[in-house]
C-alpha cells in the first residue's frame, strides 16, 4: 500500500516526522514521482493495517498545518 503526497501541498519535513512517529507500526520507503512524494508501506502492524495509510496522511496534514502557523 502507498500514500501519495503532492509536493505543493505537503512538505518533506512533515512526512519524515510522521514516518518517524509511526515507525513502530510498519516499514516505510519514500520515493519521488513527479510532483508527488510516495510513501510505500510494508509490513504494517496487523491491528492497524486497515487505517495506517489514512492515519499517516492525517498526521502529515496536521504537521503541515501546524508548521504554517509557527
Amino acid at each position, binding site marked *: 500500500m502507498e500514500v501519495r503526497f503532492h509536493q505543493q501541498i505537503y512538505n518533506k519535513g512533515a512526512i519524515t516526522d510522521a514516518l518517524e512517529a509511526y515507525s513502530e507500526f510498519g516499514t516505510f520507503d519514500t520515493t519521488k514521482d513527479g510532483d508527488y512524494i510516495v510513501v510505500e508501506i510494508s509490513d504494517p502492524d496487523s491491528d492497524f493495517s486497515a487505517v495506517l495509510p489514512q*492515519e499517516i496522511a492525517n498526521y502529515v496534514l496536521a504537521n503541515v498545518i501546524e508548521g*504554517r502557523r509557527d
Partner: protein
Amino acid sequence: MSTPEIFVVDAEKGRLSLRLKKGLYPMDAIYGAAYVLIDRSYLLLDKDDDGNVLVHIQAKAGKTDEQDLNTLAGDFANEALSQVLRSRVMREHKTRIESIISQAVAGGLGISAGDDLGLDVLDGDEDDLDFLDDPLGIAVPWEEKFKRSASEERPDTRDDGTDSPQPTPADSGGFQPVKPEGPSE
C-alpha cells in the same frame, strides 16, 4: 461546475472526494477547514492537472451512508468559507485588533500609556537592597507621611517664637467700629 464539486462517493467504504475550483479558496482556508474535520475523518489533499484542489475524505465512524458523507462534504465547504471570512476580517482589522490586545495586556499589567513607574531608583547599584529597604517610600504609613506637612500649614500650630496671641473663637470677625480720623468740629 458547482463548488465544491463532489466527484466520487463510495458509501460502502465511507469515502468521497471534492474538487475545489482553483483560486476560489486560498490554501490557508482549505488547510483550516481540513484541520477542523481531522478529528472525525481522514483527509488527503491533492491537486489535479488544472490546479484545482482535490479533497479526499473518509469518515472515521464505522458505518456511514451517502447522506452522512454529503453532510461531511457540506461541513467542509462551510468551514472553508468560514475560514475565508475569518482571514478577511483579520486582514481588514489587523491594526485595530493589535491595538485592543496591546491595551488589554498593558491594562492587565497596571500600566497606562505614558506612565512613569519611577522604577529608575531600582536600577543600577541598588541590586543589593534588603527586603526591608523601601527606596520608593511605599511602607511609610499615611499618618506619618502627611502629619508634618499638615501641621505646617495650620497657623494655630505654627511655632515661630513670637508672642502673637492665639486666635480665639471671639476673633470671628465681628463688628469693630473704628474712630474716624479727621478734623474735629
